[in-house]
């Protein structure tokens, strides 16, 4: 089977097995589908589109992103993601991948902020260039170990802010990130919840985002994952690619240190 027919077949199988989901661990089921797909994750289509976008010269400056410095020098994509978030001396702050992409699109390509953050999360008929770029860049770290620095004082600060955020209980429901993600083997309904304070769980989780979400038909980035968590946490909406989200990502990424990166992945 080619990639496309595999995708269609798999989606069909997943729909047919809706009831089977309820009876066994959804994670086990997803593993089965992953095996079924073998090397045919639809995220590949996002990765390919992302690579084209990375190399495409666009208005107003008519330049590509190929000179964007993701932390390992201008234009180095290979291995950049497993070291993010990180401190960038040119802006004197810590940035995650998505913040850095916004920065490069503005400074290199001359986009306005509004243009650079347009459509952070795609939907049918409204594809996100950002999700595609993120899929491409992250795929270039596949097989490498998470290696996020906390040597710079601002990296340390970002981590500590993220940690405070993780434990911050508030809102109508008294929820924090920790409410759902600080104990082993917990579930919401049938959805298994990773314990993000447990090294192995944290690694397994962080190294498999972004992911192609079968239920949404899109590749979803870390920013999307966090935004959707916060929505269910009864928190207001985070501004896209903001410092608080970078801090939270820093906390999660650092906790996943040493994990072998394996994304874009495939998830429910």
């Amino acid at each position, binding site marked *: 089977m080619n990639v496309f027919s595999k995708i269609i077949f798999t989606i069909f199988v997943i729909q047919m097995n809706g009831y089977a989901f309820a009876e066994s661990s959804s994670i086990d089921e997803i593993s089965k589908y992953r095996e079924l797909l073998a090397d045919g994750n639809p995220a590949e289509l996002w990765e390919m589109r992302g690579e084209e976008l990375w190399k495409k010269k666009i208005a107003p400056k008519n330049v590509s992103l190929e000179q964007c410095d993701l932390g390992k020098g201008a234009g180095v994509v290979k291995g950049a993601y497993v070291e993010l978030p990180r401190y960038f001396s040119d802006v004197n702050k810590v940035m995650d991948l998505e913040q850095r992409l916004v920065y490069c699109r503005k400074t290199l390509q001359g986009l306005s902020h509004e243009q650079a953050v347009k459509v952070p999360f795609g939907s049918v008929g409204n594809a996100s260039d950002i999700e595609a770029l993120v899929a491409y860049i992250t795929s270039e770290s596949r097989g490498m170990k998470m290696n996020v620095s906390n040597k710079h004082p601002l990296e340390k600060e970002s981590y500590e802010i993220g940690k405070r955020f993780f434990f911050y209980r*508030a809102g*109508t429901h008294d929820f924090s990130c920790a409410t759902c993600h600080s*104990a082993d083997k*917990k579930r919401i*309904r049938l959805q298994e919840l990773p314990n993000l304070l447990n090294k192995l769980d944290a690694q397994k989780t962080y190294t498999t985002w972004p992911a192609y979400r079968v239920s949404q038909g899109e590749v979803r980035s870390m920013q999307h994952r966090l935004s959707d968590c916060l*929505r269910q946490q*009864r928190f207001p909406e*985070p501004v896209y690619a*903001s410092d608080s989200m970078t801090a939270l990502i820093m906390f999660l990424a650092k906790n996943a240190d040493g994990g072998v990166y394996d994304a874009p992945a495939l998830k429910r």
Partner: protein
Amino acid sequence: MKKMLMGLSVSIVITGCTTAAIKTDYGQTMLTLLRSEFISKGPATVERVLSQDEVQKICSEYPVERPEKMATLIQDSQMKTVQYPSDGIYIGDWKNGEKIAQNGRGFQSSDPLGGVNGGNCYACHNITKSEISYGNIGPSLYNYIKAHGSSEQVIKYTWAKIYNSQAYTDCSSMPRFGHSGILNEQQIKDVMALLLDPASPVNQ
């Protein structure tokens, strides 16, 4: 903001927290970011998440366990918030209770303002035999009467637990459904019926 800063320092005094000043600074920076980088949407507002009460402050500071004194302080103060049904009737309609237990909506940024809130009990609890999609953050409530009986004491305990879970368990993961205005009195009666009506599928 000033009021909140005062609130935080008060909680630190109360909790006898001896952390270094730098830790407080991280917390303050986090709050500043929360204020400036989040946008209220629908029923989920920035103001609401910034106005932590004392319980939320302590539970953020001590997420895993806390000194016994503090635990007692939370339970005592939360027990005082419990309002028992005004007409003395504790048990409503279990069928409505089941709908409330299934409904996960309410107070999300994606929910409408003034919509009907659910309790989303199945997210965390095993409740009925027929619903196999349930979570495990809370204990099983299946066969509730068999497990706990249905004495007046149990009925009052169950009411208070739903109304304000922290009256019994400081920093419980369970929302304070009555105290926080998530479920109204009639809804709590209906959820009570799901657990305590002998005709409810919970007790079949």
